[in-house]
């Protein structure tokens, strides 16, 4: 048994680390660290820096301009990015559409679509959930009816993350109402500039608007925008869900957040004591940290399995469950440690007048925003269903 990374893997980590130190703009890292909303320009700027280095598409094979990294290298890269407070990479083009096209796309689709994902000229968003189809995605109703060389799309999608910045969308649409609900779904690409598409922001619990509703009224989409076969969409959607989930636990984010908590707990004082010296907080932090350390090892064990080709859906569901629980526990601890200083939604005070460190000023909104972790990507209840199904099979 050996928990150490190989010398090559350690050298790779050093290389990533050196690159981030040199190339990650400080103002971006500060924004990420303080939980501030990043602009479209911020996100594209970071994406272009990585693209120049050839490190943007971690899950893509080399022939398509990806890194060709294995699961361990992807893990190291993601962890280091999180530890350096790099902006998150948008998964929609890179981790979702890209891999779908490798597997199900035509040569033309790959040729036409992949470069735009890499150079940032296209911003993809996702049209999966609907008002009536969340966890039960197969119940989706947005219709695509064939009319000559086009589909005519009518319906509504929701929870479309950062759709306000996007110019393209991939959707699951209903192309048949016969047979089981899963059998009549197709995977369709659309240009958001097509007449009949309207995007409306949804304001979230913390006040931000990172998600949207998308309305489709008689939208004409060329048949060549279909990925895979008609009515094969469910297979594609499932492939997406099991593909590349080694970073699903987000251990890098949790480690970083725990560091921030320790920093905060030594900086702020309540009723004559540093939070770090308050026995209740110290105990809570130590217990969460033990869970985080276990999580880190669980993640490594699954990576080792993945390297041997043995990681399955059950593993990634369990990682998602525990990973999100740990992250949410740390966010909760952080908000809670601030006491009444966490109350302002946004402060009018200048940065040097704030009663709390700048990076802590948005702790409560960030906490509320992160309740999403256990809801999206298949809610934690759905993950439990997946594991239970395997467990009680037969």
């Amino acid at each position, binding site marked *: *048994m*050996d*928990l*150490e*990374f*190989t010398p090559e*893997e350690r050298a790779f980590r050093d290389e990533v680390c050196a690159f981030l130190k040199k190339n990650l703009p400080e103002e971006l890292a500060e924004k990420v660290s303080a939980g501030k909303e990043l602009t479209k320009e911020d996100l594209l700027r970071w994406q272009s820096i990585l693209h120049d280095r050839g490190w943007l598409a971690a899950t893509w094979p080399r022939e398509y301009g990806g890194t060709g990294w294995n699961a*361990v290298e992807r893990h190291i890269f993601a962890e280091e990015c999180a530890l350096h407070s790099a902006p998150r990479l948008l998964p929609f083009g890179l981790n979702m559409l890209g891999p779908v096209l490798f597997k199900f796309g035509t040569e033309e689709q790959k040729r036409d679509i992949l470069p735009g994902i890499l150079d940032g000229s296209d911003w993809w968003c996702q049209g999966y959930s609907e008002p009536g189809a969340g966890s039960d995605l197969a119940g989706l109703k947005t219709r695509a009816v064939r009319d000559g060389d086009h589909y005519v799309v009518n319906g509504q999608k929701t929870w479309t993350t950062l759709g306000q910045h996007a110019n393209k969308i991939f959707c699951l649409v209903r192309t048949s109402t016969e047979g089981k609900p899963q059998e009549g779904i197709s995977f369709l690409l659309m240009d958001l500039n097509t007449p009949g598409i309207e995007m409306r922001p949804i304001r979230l619990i913390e006040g931000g608007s990172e998600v949207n509703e998308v309305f489709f009224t008689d939208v004409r989409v060329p048949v060549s925008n279909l990925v895979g076969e008609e009515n094969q969409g469910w297979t594609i959607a499932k492939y997406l869900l099991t593909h590349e989930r080694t970073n699903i636990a987000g251990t890098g984010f949790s*480690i970083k957040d*725990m*560091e921030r908590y*320790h920093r905060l707990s030594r900086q702020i004082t309540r009723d004559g004591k540093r939070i770090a010296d308050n*026995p209740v907080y*110290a*105990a809570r932090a*130590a*217990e969460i*940290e*033990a*869970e985080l*350390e*276990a*999580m*880190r*090892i*669980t993640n*490594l*064990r699954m*990576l*080792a399995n993945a*390297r041997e080709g043995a990681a399955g859906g059950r593993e990634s569901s*369990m990682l998602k*469950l*525990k990973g999100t629980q740990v992250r949410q526990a740390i966010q909760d601890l952080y908000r809670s440690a601030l006491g009444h200083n966490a109350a302002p939604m946004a402060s009018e005070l200048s940065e040097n007048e704030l009663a709390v460190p700048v990076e802590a000023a948005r702790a409560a909104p960030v906490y509320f925003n992160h309740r999403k972790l256990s809801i999206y990507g298949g809610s934690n*209840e759905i*993950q*439990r*269903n997946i*594991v*239970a199904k395997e*467990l*009680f099979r037969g």
Partner: protein
Amino acid sequence: MDFNLSDHHQILADSLRRFLADNYKFETRNKQVYAEPWHSQEIWSELADLGVMGAFVTEEQGGFGGSAEDVLVIFEEIGRGLCAEPLLGNLLGIRLLAALGRREMVDDIVAGAARTALAVYEPQVACDLSYLEATARKSGDGWRLTGRKSAVYGAVGADHLLIAARTDDGIGLFLPENPELISATMVDGGNIADLIMDDLPTECVSADCRNVLENALDLGRIALCAEAVGVMTRLTDLTVDYLKQRQQFGKPLAAFQALQHRVVDMLVELDQCRSITIAAVAAFGGGDQSRRVSQAKNLIGRMGRKIAEEAIQMHGGIGMTWEYPGAHYAKRLVMIDHQLGDHVDHVQRLILMSDKPNASA
């Protein structure tokens, strides 16, 4: 990065699992562990023949193992088999005797011809040796012990009973002849004893060996964590099987989502417990040893109770019965937290460590 057992460890694990499955029957176990002498000499000898005792110390010290991984492999199987033989005391004792150069005693213990145990904790001291009160003082050619010891696992029948006591130089270890024991049956089986010492003549093994003692105790904690992981594995298996078999309202309990989700949560925590135990094993002997060991003991203490309670609850009435093995697994799982410092003691230890400047996340 490699989480597979070495061939040698895999063979050890397999042979131990087979031996316990074939020879350590639940009904016999329950007859043995709840009454004097609280264990089986026959099982003990066979465990020694399988190499269990020898795996606790290095070749140089007279054994054929001695790593934390050896301890992990053995105690996980001990947990799976719910074996209540007094191995914890034996592990603690042999590590100390080996480290302090008592080769002859070590040889006898490795051969299964002798047993050892350690008296370290006291009615008011459960984890932190700084608070030990029992004292040893020089008297003529020998030493005398005064004070009280509690929670001595496997004391009855131990040939070499080591006693930790405060000396002028620090904390020492002593080997009195025939100390008087006040013994009891543990709630989860096995024997535990108290000692009341009043100027008890004794031989001194070392007058100052706190570090050796701390290391042995940390390894004992790893053993308990590994045992807990073995117990949890078996207990969750039993629970899954039971939910598949038991029919209510015309369908198996496994069809009820309220129960499915709780079982999945048990499995997730079991995975976490296995991971943190691996972390402690990997850290043993390094700078992070105490920190990882305390994290493991804390997490396993909390999750062990949770898994035990959930298992009992999901079995319903049958989980409450003496005749059902699962009940005894659950009982052991809860009581493991009470040994060598519980989850609260270990969180305290973590807090004390994090006050030190060299602590990092």
